[in-house]
């Protein structure tokens, strides 16, 4: 076996072995069990014969529909690979591969082949996954035909992408600017569009929208199919159709009949890629560096890698050298989030949205119950945006705070030498993301209230609505702290379980671990809300003994709930502080 074959096979075998070996650690074993249970309950229904949770339904009488759809998707991907790339041709090599293989006496062609061979494992998994999620695994032998079909499509797409990047690199070396190339591709697309229009004009009129609604999409699909099978378009699209055809075979005979043409096109792509003698080394090195930086950033719990081109940011305020120390962490956190410039942009966006919402509200007052559809649409879009922001932020603030804390663990050597108690460090680390998140939530809540006024003028005169909104606004900071404390505590109590660099990859055990963390966070918050709900209800009934005014009862219950949650948050920060103080850095090094 040659060296490259040895590298690929041993790397794969060792990777599988090390994943199996780490199942001896309880966290990975539990993760694997959790992940397996998830996949069983999620995909088991498909394997048992039920339809996929998402995926194509067979459209009766339009067998060509999915085939054409897949061909269009295929074409779009290929066209984009000629339009989008702006950087040099890059093959994905790791830094170790670059260090060992690039200086070695190995031809460029061999490196390309090695890259293609290495990608087969991923492509095979992806083909199986696509078959699974498109609900074909309950089809017996047909499932394997689907895997084969997807594998051909994925391979051809992959090689076309690489071949296109090589061709573009060559064009660049010959002095062709990217914009010229893009214009050429757009012109070619315009030619195809004209061809479609020319073909369409020579066909009978398309079915009306009403007819389409009545007969499903059958008539429309048949019409599109007719266009694509008429005149020159039929020949132009033939190669694309041939590649996707095996994926739509229902029996082995049809599959084997469709396979040679698809494999032939794949083989032509292979020859095209391995014969293109294009310099990809520089770009591969650059790409490997970026990937390593991305992985390192993910290891620190960050969502993206910091690049050398980043610019210094202006702090939101000037930090005085004396005062409450946790403020320094908030100041740092705001800087990390973009500093004054980013905050100003958000403020402008908020003011614009609030002004828009206010204008809509005035329009609603002037024409109650008779708003133009455009106004209703705009109001609905802004309103839905606000509610989605609120919902997503409930989870994201906690996760972001825990990520911040994980990054803190990487610099724990430094943090531990600071002359401030652990609770102040914990408060400081959490305060930044919580403060920013709460500010965003307040903005969303304010705009949502204005939008609500646009739709229901009566609500403006109901004192309960602003009261509820005010209550939610007051409830949010303590709630956000509670959401942040539990994942943060988990990070400090079980640092080995919460290492993002080890748990963020693919695999059953990592999926299980991520799910466990999410479920754990929700359970912990649910537990924290029990006393809040209990004392809130107690206050509601207690207030009911003295007054029958609903607002006073609500105020009493809400106030108590906020107080209890705020107390929990304070206790939580103190607890986090003690965990910080006791945290053994040596376990992390």
């Amino acid at each position, binding site marked *: 076996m040659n060296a490259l074959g040895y590298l690929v096979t041993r790397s794969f075998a060792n990777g599988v072995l090390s994943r199996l070996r780490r199942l001896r650690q309880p966290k990975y074993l539990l993760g694997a069990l959790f992940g397996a249970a998830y996949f069983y309950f999620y995909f088991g229904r498909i394997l048992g014969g039920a339809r996929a949770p998402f995926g194509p339904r067979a459209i009766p009488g339009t067998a060509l529909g999915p085939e054409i759809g897949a061909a269009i998707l295929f074409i779009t991907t290929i066209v984009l690979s000629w339009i989008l790339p702006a950087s040099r041709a890059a093959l994905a090599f790791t830094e170790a591969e670059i260090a060992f293989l690039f200086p070695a006496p190995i031809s460029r062609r061999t490196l390309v082949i090695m890259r293609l061979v290495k990608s087969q494992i991923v492509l095979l998994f992806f083909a199986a996954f696509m078959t699974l999620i498109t609900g074909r695994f309950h089809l017996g032998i047909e499932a394997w035909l689907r895997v084969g079909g997807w594998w051909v499509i994925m391979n051809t797409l992959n090689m076309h992408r690489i071949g296109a990047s090589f061709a573009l690199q060559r064009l660049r070396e010959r002095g062709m600017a990217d914009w010229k190339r893009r214009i050429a591709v757009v012109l070619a697309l315009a030619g195809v569009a004209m061809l479609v229009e020319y073909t369409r004009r020579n066909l009978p009129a398309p079915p009306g929208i009403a007819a389409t609604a009545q007969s499903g999409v059958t008539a429309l699909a048949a019409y599109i199919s007719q266009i694509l099978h008429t005149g020159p378009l039929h020949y132009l699209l033939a190669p694309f159709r041939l590649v996707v055809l095996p994926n739509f075979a229902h029996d082995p005979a049809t599959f084997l009949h469709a396979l040679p043409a698809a494999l032939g096109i794949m083989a032509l792509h292979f020859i095209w890629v391995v014969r293109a003698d294009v310099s990809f080394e520089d770009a591969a090195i650059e790409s490997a560096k970026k990937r390593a930086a991305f992985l390192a950033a993910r290891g620190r719990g960050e969502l993206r890698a910091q*690049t050398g081109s980043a610019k210094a940011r202006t702090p939101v305020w000037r930090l005085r050298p004396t*005062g409450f120390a946790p403020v320094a962490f908030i100041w740092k956190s705001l800087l990390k989030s973009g500093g004054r410039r980013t905050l100003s942009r958000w403020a402008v966006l908020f003011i614009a949205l609030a002004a828009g919402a206010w204008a809509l509200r005035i329009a609603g007052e002037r024409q109650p119950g008779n708003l133009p559809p455009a106004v209703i649409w705009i109001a609905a879009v802004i309103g839905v945006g606000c509610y989605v922001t609120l919902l997503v932020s409930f989870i994201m603030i906690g996760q972001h705070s825990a990520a911040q804390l994980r990054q803190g663990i990487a610099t724990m050597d430094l943090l531990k030498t600071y002359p401030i108690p652990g609770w102040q460090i914990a408060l400081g680390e959490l305060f930044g993301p919580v403060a920013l998140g709460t500010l965003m939530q307040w903005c969303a809540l304010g705009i949502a209230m204005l939008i609500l006024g646009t739709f229901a003028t009566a609500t403006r005169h109901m004192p309960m609505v602003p009261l509820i909104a005010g209550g939610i606004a007051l409830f949010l900071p303590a709630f956000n702290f509670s959401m942040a404390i539990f994942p943060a505590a988990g990070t400090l109590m079980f640092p080995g379980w919460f290492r993002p660099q080890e748990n963020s990859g693919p695999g059953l055990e990592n999926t299980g671990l991520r799910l466990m963390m999410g479920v754990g966070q929700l359970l912990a918050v649910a537990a924290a809300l029990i006393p809040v709900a209990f004392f809130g209800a107690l206050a509601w009934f207690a207030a009911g003994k003295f007054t029958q005014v609903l607002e006073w009862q609500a105020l009493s219950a809400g106030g108590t709930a906020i107080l209890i949650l705020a107390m929990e948050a304070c206790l939580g920060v103190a607890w986090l502080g003690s965990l910080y103080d006791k945290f053994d*850095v040596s376990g992390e090094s």
Partner: protein
Amino acid sequence: MIAVEGLTKLYGDVTAVSDLSFTVEPGKVMGLVGPNGAGKTTALRCISGIIPATHGRIEIDGHDLHKDTLAAKKLLAFFPDEPRLFDYLTVRQHLEFTARLYQVRDAAERSRELLDALEMTEKANVLPTELSRGMKQKVALACGFLHQPRVMFFDEPLTGLDPLAIRRTKDLIAAKARDGVAIIISSHLLHLLEEVCSHVLILKRGKKIAHGTLEEIRAQFREGDKDSTLEEIFIRLVGEDAGK
């Protein structure tokens, strides 16, 4: 002054550091040496309050590190082997942040002086990603010096630096010692320690096997060769553990 008495650090059944005692007077520089895994970094982390000691007493300028943690920490500075900086803070912002943590009243003036002394004034508004390793080391030094600590701990301070940076760092350490700061340096670069340290402590498997001034150690372990270097004595003492 640093006073350590009976410092022991256990990890389960494993003893990382065992019954370590020594003092470092103001103005003195102690070299902490030993083969890999001898417990140098663990000892340094315990003494600087990063990790708790299992047993023993550590005093920083008279403050018990365990009982009076914050007061003790205000007086010390720890410099890890790899300068760890915040990606999104410029050099100046690092100093502002550190000033707030240590409540340094005249931070602006001190920062200016430090940046000048470390030839970093031109880089004051630059992010760490644009700095070389040596420059990052300078930022870490500036942050550590800002609150004028009375005690300093350096973990492998010279690793990865070019000869000029090594010379500057050594000069800085020597200058701080002249100002009366008690310093502990952990390093493998023995010939360089010989130049900077007033005395040396050699650790082997968590235990102190030699401690004293360089002359005292030479006199005690030279075995006939009066011109023995610290490196020769070290290899003789740690024997089979060296080079692990």
